[in-house]
């Protein structure tokens, strides 16, 4: 029923110090599909998505048990190069976080740190990435302006462009629209819809309608546990678990 898995979590536990934040999560994110993670605040959905590119490694006192398998390899095994892993698994954060550089340099940044120096190559990728993020037409005449001069929604699309520029295989979205107005949100949702052709997408969202609109598969988490996982239309129309039903019908949340 579920197509080829790009990412698979196997009995994943996660600890902040002694506090267990994730408890035995097992699920997959299928290749070239959008998988949404929903659940009430503090359910561990952001923690989970940050284990997929090992971004939690930078938080002191955290610990992972279990496995995250990407393309058949456990990314927590010794021989994994975390830096290369993060290049392959892009991430767009909750708050747009452009760097205090020009629009152009924001995108070029990832290319430069990955060793691409040729100017024309960089220019070419910057344009391609901005087009992919549907931002090119709005910024093509002001590439040298500071990225902070963009609106919030534009900044987030810039961050998307920045992340696709380094040619990732997976893009992780950690509540990408929570700080953005509805019109800008619609643009970003459009982008995510299209991205499944090229990437595997995992998105954390607080907004159930958003999950229903953009995703193929949905996982519902609560208190660090996976309550239900399945195809999005099914989970939203005919959930198996009572908790899922209560959550998506707005009885709590």
């Amino acid at each position, binding site marked *: 029923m579920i197509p080829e898995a790009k990412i698979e979590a196997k009995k994943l536990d996660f600890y902040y110090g002694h506090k267990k934040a994730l408890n035995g999560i097992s699920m997959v994110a299928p290749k070239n599909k959008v998988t949404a993670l929903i659940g009430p605040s503090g359910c561990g959905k952001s923690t989970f998505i940050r284990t997929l*590119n090992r*971004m939690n490694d*930078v938080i*002191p006192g955290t610990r992972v048990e279990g496995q995250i398998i990407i393309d058949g390899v456990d990314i927590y095994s010794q021989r994994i190069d975390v*830096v*290369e892993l*993060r*290049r*392959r698994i*892009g*991430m767009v*954060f909750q*708050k747009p*976080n452009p*760097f*205090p*550089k*020009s629009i152009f340099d924001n995108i070029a*940044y*990832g290319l*430069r*740190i*990955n060793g691409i120096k040729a100017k024309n190559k960089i220019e070419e990728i910057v344009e391609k990435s901005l087009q992919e993020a549907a931002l090119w037409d709005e910024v093509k005449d002001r590439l*040298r302006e*500071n990225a902070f001069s963009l609106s919030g929604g534009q900044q987030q699309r810039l*961050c998307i462009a*920045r*992340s696709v520029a*380094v040619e990732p295989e997976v893009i992780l979205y950690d509540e990408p629209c929570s700080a953005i107005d509805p019109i800008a949100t619609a643009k970003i949702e459009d982008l995510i819809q299209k991205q499944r052709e090229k990437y595997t997408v995992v998105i954390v969202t607080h907004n159930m309608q958003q999950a229903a609109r953009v995703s193929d598969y949905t996982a519902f988490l609560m208190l660090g546990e996976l309550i239900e996982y399945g195809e999005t239309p099914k989970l939203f129309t005919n959930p198996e678990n009572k908790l899922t039903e209560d959550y998506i019908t707005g009885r709590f949340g």
Partner: protein
Amino acid sequence: MKKKKIVELLGFLSLRICLYLVLAVLLLFLYDIGSKGAGTLSWEFLSQAPKRGMTEGGIFPAIIGTLLVTIVTAILAVPLGMFAAIYLNEYAKQTRLTRIIRLSIRNLSGVPSIVYGLFGVILFVNILKFGTSILSAGLTLGLLTLPWTITASEEALKTIPNSYREGALALGATKWQAIRTNVLPYAMPGMLTGTVLGLARAAGETAPIMFTGAAFYLPYLPQSLRDQFMALPYHLYVMATQHHSIAQVRPIAYGTALVLLLLILLMTMSVALIRYRMRRVKRE
């Protein structure tokens, strides 16, 4: 309702009076030194050595001495302080040990400078056998400046949002790449400000250099780092308290004080300029 307004008014008023009082003292102080020192200032005063038992002539050797010793201080304190701050803020785990280290550094900045002077005599002059010299004095001042440099640099690093670091890491940057390309450039103006303010303070110190290298009077300029030197703050101390005819050399003392103040003003102004430049590049 009315009472609230009066309290508010009185509150603001007292705050404002405090500010004016501080300003008044500062202005009085600057006026005193400026008015009494300005008459002494001249090209000869700046470019000639003291003459006739230091009752005439200029303070050129003291200016040179202070500049040289400050350079040695900077060579020790600037890189060491910045790198230590980078390590503490970016790499070190937040354990009890790092908390103790951090607290010790804060406390070191409160140690009286004369204690640094004594420590410098023991370590640099006696144990390392650098003699009473520019090197010993500069290194002593370097130690004195380090806690300030580290603290100021760490504070500057703390102001850089974590999202810059995480954003860079998420694109496949190594930790050092993230720090070097996406943290340091934005922290640098703040780090430099703290550092140069520390250096300016060191340039005006007397006690640490008294035992470690500053000379009462030298008929020649220092030829190497191992030579003794004259320095502005020590020269001022000598002219104000140690000279055989203090009353006669009072104008020279004021002139020296004014030059020292101007030198420090120059240092802080240059930082302001660097900050301004860096900000503009960033906005580009």
